[in-house]
């Protein structure tokens, strides 16, 4: 049995958080979802510092990043993840409200694993999030960073 690792969701809008959690929960994905409301908190979590200094050392199975967030936005978090030796293997999915070319280009340039435009139609949104969670958190075999255990 695969051990279910956590999913990190960085999203500043509580309504979107609720909708996303609903979608993930709907599929009975048993992964723990850690929700942070800005990029700074997301980086704290990933680097195990501040409020998250005590978390288990395992990296999350998937990071869902909202593009527009206060303080540190999704693109900056993405840049940090993909330039860090220990974090770059974590699959990152960018969630955005628009198909804005610039954002797309920058995200792929930084090495994002997927870029998802949040659809207005709820069903589509649900399906998209479910598919993401299933693929990246359950099926995807990510290389584990070597650790001295």
């Amino acid at each position: 049995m695969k051990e279910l690792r956590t999913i990190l969701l960085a999203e500043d809008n509580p309504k979107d958080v609720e909708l996303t959690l609903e979608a993930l929960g709907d599929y009975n994905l048993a992964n723990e979802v850690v929700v942070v409301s800005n990029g700074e908190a997301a980086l704290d979590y990933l680097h195990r510092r501040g409020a998250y200094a005590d978390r288990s050392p395992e990296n999350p199975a998937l990071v869902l990043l909202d593009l527009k967030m206060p303080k540190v936005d999704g693109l900056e978090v993405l840049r940090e993840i993909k330039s860090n030796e220990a974090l770059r293997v974590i699959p990152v999915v960018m969630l955005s409200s628009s198909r804005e070319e610039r954002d797309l280009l920058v995200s792929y340039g930084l090495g994002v694993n997927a870029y998802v435009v949040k659809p207005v139609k709820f069903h589509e949104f649900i399906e998209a999030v479910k598919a993401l969670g299933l693929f990246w958190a359950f099926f995807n075999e990510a290389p584990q960073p070597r650790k001295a255990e």
Partner: protein
Amino acid sequence: MLSGKDKSFVDTIRRDRLHDRFFNLPPHLKRPVLFLLIFLIVVVPVLFYHNANREVDEASAWVAHTATVEGKIYEVLYDLRDAEAASRTAAFLPGTPESQKAEADVVAALAAAPSNLDALQALTLDNPYQQERIGRLRASIEGRAPAMREMILLGRAGQVEAAKALLRQSIAANPFREVALKMVEEEKKLLAHRTEKAARDRREVAFLIWGAAAAQLLLFFALYVVSEKDAARRRQAEEASLEAAAYAQSVVETNPDPLTVLDGAARIRSVNKAFAALYGVELGQVRGEPLWEAGGGAWRLPDLQQRLADLIPQGREIWDLEVAQQIGGERRVMLVNARPFPSASGEKLILLAAKDVTARKRIEEQITLLNQELAARVEQTNIVNQELEAFSYSVSHDLRAPLRHITGFADMLNTHLAKQEGDAKTERYLKYIRESANQMGTLIDDLLVFSRMGRSEMAEEEVNMAELVRDVIKHFNLETEGRRIEFAVGPIPSTRGDAAMLKLVWMNLIGNAIKYSRDADPARVEVGALPSDQPEHVYFVRDNGVGFNMKYVHKLFGVFQRLHQADEYEGTGIGLANVRRIVQRHGGKAWADGQVGQGATFSFSIPQQPPPTPDTPAPPLAWPRQPLT
């Protein structure tokens, strides 16, 4: 081969060259050559004449000599004849007074004869024949003289007959008349010969004189021609220089820009009309005045003064120096040029030219001002564009989030209520909420696409339009299943442009044709291009659908403009606006023709040499090809 005409032309050139050789001699050689020519012309004939004259003189002397010789011969001859005659008289008439006198005569004549012979001999020393004859003559005389003396003795003795016989014998024995005559003849022959030679010499001299005269004339003529030509050349050169001077003068005078010539101390030498008119001066008044004093002090410019002072000593020039002058109470901007030049006498002068650029300056200032305004406006436009972009970015993110929430929570509410006992009205209202939110989402998405069409960078590639049309028709295959649609696709030329954008154009036009011909059976959609050699391609899509009223044609291409109700034909009304925007960005135009119930034709043109697009696109970036969602 040279034709006759050419030859004479060449000869002319040769002659000219000969002249040229003289004219092209260095000046210090010209004079000696001229003197040498004159010497030859004058002295050589004189030498010839002198020589010929001497020869004539000699010939004349010879003639005189011959006459002398002849005279002497006759003298000798007459002496002898006298002696003979006297001896006859004395012998034949003895005892008469005549005979006594005759005896004396004979003695005298015979005495004279030897000296005359000596003289003759001396005269004819050059002629051996005559010498020989003189010898014979002398022998004859010497032979006759004793006979004569004996005849006289015989006469005295009365023996006349014996005397006569002696005479006859003596004459026969000593012939001297023949010898003398021979000598005379010889001398005459010599004379004739010498006379002839003298005459020939004279003729030769005459010939020489005339010849020399002719040669002199010829040489003088040649000199005349040469000097005439020289003079003509000088005249021509003078005329040319006069003409050049007049030309320069007229150029200076008619030049609309003020010109003045200054001396080394910047004192005015001359001014042209334009200078006089502009600065209100007259040459007579300002000649010799420093430039600074002329024209009411318009030239009192320290910088220019310094530069003019440096001009000659430092060999400088003034190029387009811009100065502001007060001329007649008006401020004028002048461009000043000045350069030194040597006068005919070698004095260094300055030519100063001014050009009134006040008007140009004013226009330049206006242009600068306009450019500044334009730059400010462009800046403003850029700011507006940036704001618009920020706005649309904001719309795309922030406007869609609440919509998503409305639909999401309406859905969740629906699910939530479904577990309980929901009533039909609640369900319907929730459905309306979802539908409206969805529609708004679609509108926003369309608007974003439209906005992006105007902003995104355009590719510039060869686009196979025929292939695009085939793809688009294939795309609609699914939608048109169950309908009878005749597609008629004509030849469609390729063009340069952005394939993705142009595909959107065909999607919209062909999609519209299919949509609005829904009620026709069979529906007919024609796609093609107008045959044209114009510098643009015109493409069209024609259908036999519902058409439209041309009254509303101007609304067709507007954003969200619709000619049909939403429940008749689906759509937001953004498609044709996109078509127009894309075609415009390709430098072309889009238009429509139609009639209610008669179908519609939508056309667009793409220039084949497109003008530069109004916005300057950034270098094209690769579009991400990864599949999304």
